[in-house]
């Protein structure tokens, strides 16, 4: 039981990292990003390839963050110039380009066959309980660090500026401050966090393949962020929790409802995700954890 809960907690933490970083992008800075899974994928492959080639974990994690941030840089520049609806589509397209490149460049990524046997930190602790708990400690540390980082950023004058940009970019310009550099930097920081999430995911799953990085992951993360509340750190955790609750909870529910077939359960699970997203957008757009109301 403990190891199952540990596993769910680890996956929760990975989604929490994704939600937090998307929240930094959108919730705090107003950057519309529908390509988050692209950064996640880049991080996963960077870390996997590094450690499969015998490099230390530190190198893999650094590469994951750095490459994801690097990929965010041109996208951030584009974000400065585009209408937000176009940006939504361009970022979505970006994540698909990432997936196509990973699929096509087989010499590097092994293409659709995926990368098996990615080593996991703490494997020396023996297989099972302790190693799992140690890994959980690692992902929890990552989440805590991400929270501290984002909280520090948001509460700093830099954070005040990004929130001003979110609220009204034109007004920021009129005050003689250039939003461009700030937005690109935030884009890169959030991407780096998503990249770290990807690295943690790759090492945990031991196996990655391009099909794991579909746009649906991005939509899941958006749902988690909207549910918790854009611009709320605690909201990101709550949102990711609800998401994992839905995805995993359906297993438990099905054990109790023998008459519901697995296929139907899968449909119901997905339907619930979609329905929640619609209902929150309609009736609770500020999410569960945001009390500040816009007039």
């Amino acid at each position, binding site marked *: *039981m403990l190891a199952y809960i540990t596993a769910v907690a680890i996956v929760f933490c990975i989604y929490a990292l994704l939600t937090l970083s998307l929240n930094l992008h959108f919730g705090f800075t107003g950057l519309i990003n529908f390509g988050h899974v692209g950064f996640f994928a880049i991080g996963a492959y960077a870390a996997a390839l590094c450690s499969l080639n015998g490099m230390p974990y530190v190198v893999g994690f650094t590469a994951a963050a750095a490459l994801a941030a690097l990929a965010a840089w041109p996208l951030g520049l584009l974000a400065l110039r585009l209408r937000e609806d176009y940006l939504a589509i361009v970022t979505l397209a970006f994540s698909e380009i990432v997936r196509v490149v990973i699929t096509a460049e087989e010499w590097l990524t092994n293409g659709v066959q995926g990368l098996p046997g990615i080593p996991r930190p703490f494997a020396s602790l023996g297989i099972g309980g302790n190693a799992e708990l140690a890994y959980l400690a690692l992902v929890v540390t990552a989440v805590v660090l991400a929270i501290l980082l984002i909280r520090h950023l948001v509460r700093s004058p830099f954070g005040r500026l990004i929130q001003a940009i979110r609220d009204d970019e034109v007004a920021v310009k009129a005050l003689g401050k250039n939003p461009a550099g700030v937005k690109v930097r935030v884009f890169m920081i959030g991407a780096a966090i998503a990249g770290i999430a990807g690295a943690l995911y790759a090492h945990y*799953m031991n196996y990655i393949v391009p099909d794991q990085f579909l746009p649906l992951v991005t939509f899941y993360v958006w749902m988690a962020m909207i549910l918790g509340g854009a611009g709320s750190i605690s909201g990101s955790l709550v949102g990711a929790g609800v998401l994992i609750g839905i995805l995993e909870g359906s297993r438990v529910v099905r*054990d109790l409802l023998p008459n519901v*077939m697995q296929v139907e359960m899968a449909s119901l699970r997905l339907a619930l995700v979609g329905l929640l997203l619609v209902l929150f957008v309609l009736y609770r757009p500020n999410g569960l954890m945001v009390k500040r109301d816009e007039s």
Partner: protein
Amino acid sequence: MRFNRREIMLTGAASLAAAMAPVGFARAAEPYRIGALNPITGAGSPYGSGTQKTILFAAQEVNDAGGAAGRMFEVFAEDTQTAPEAGVLAAKKLIEVNKVDAIFGTWSSGVTLAIMPLTDAANVILMTNSGAASISTLDTKDLVYRYSTTGIRSGRAISGVIEKEGLTRVATMAFNNASGRDLVAGVKSGWEEKGHSLVAEVVYEPNRPGYRSELQQILAAKPEIIMLGSYLPDTTIIVREARQMGSDVRFIGPGYAIAPKLSESLGAEAVEGLMAVDYVSSLDSSAYAHFSKRYQDEMGSDVGENFYASCAYDMVQCTALAIEAAGPGADNTKIAANLRKVSNPGGKVVSGFAEGKKLLAAGEEINYEGASGPLDFDEHGDVKPLFKLSKLRSGALEYQYMLSL
């Protein structure tokens, strides 16, 4: 001591099942818990539900026969969603929460590769239908058994068929995923070993509104036959497009893609003579006859399109026989050691658990010949497959001949 289907479905609440168990069961040994981890949704969904139901009713048959070495089979069903992440969480739940002893019926190689470290660590027997070659080599404890063969082996078998049919201009067209690629890789290596070369090779991306340019490139090389490594939906589209482009090229492919449903969709004429190479479900074996009838009753559809379900049936039967042979109180290592003993040649041929149990009790050696084939495992725990060729004739698959590697 009858365990009806509903009770097996309910075993998720294990205590409930125990409470409802008959008295005779109470003195029996710890049940043998099985995780039915199948692709209910995602790319494997055409096979997952049937596979899962099969594991349930096969387990019921074992229980009907009094259990294996006194142990009743308890089944916990899960969905891999054909995705490694969901598969890993499901496997964790099965291993940790439901305390399963074995996991049956994983399908996509991604899921199998992702959960192997878990089953390996927990000494859980893993029986799979995945095709990736690396599964054999990554199995260190000899607890992983493959009931359908690798894609590469299937591909090599297909190249043998093509040669036997006397065709020389051969092209391949593969869905860009692991199984499609393995299949054509097998065809290619088999074909080249025979001293030929392929006239065209195309790998295509799925979920497109059409595949005409891909076909056009292949048809430009004027092949006599196209080896298609696709699933049924794409096969439907591609064969139709080829005909609409005016080509009468032949197609050959795995049985899950070249199916009678094609002629329902496209008309018998368009698909006349298409060749399906499939594992031999021992069509004439009594295990298959029994299983296919059960399957028809449970699922309301023909098992012909779901070879993996017949594998799943054999997983349960074979494991039960191995447990019986290992005797009471055996652990998984010992049970696994008995798998080859009860299924490989040498003993008296049996076609089901009840029959085998009697012979074992009589101290005889047995050789289970299952619904999916003769079921002989090699040193990697992979079955040595037998293949058969069928052709679509007037809308139905017509058996032609068997071939081995």
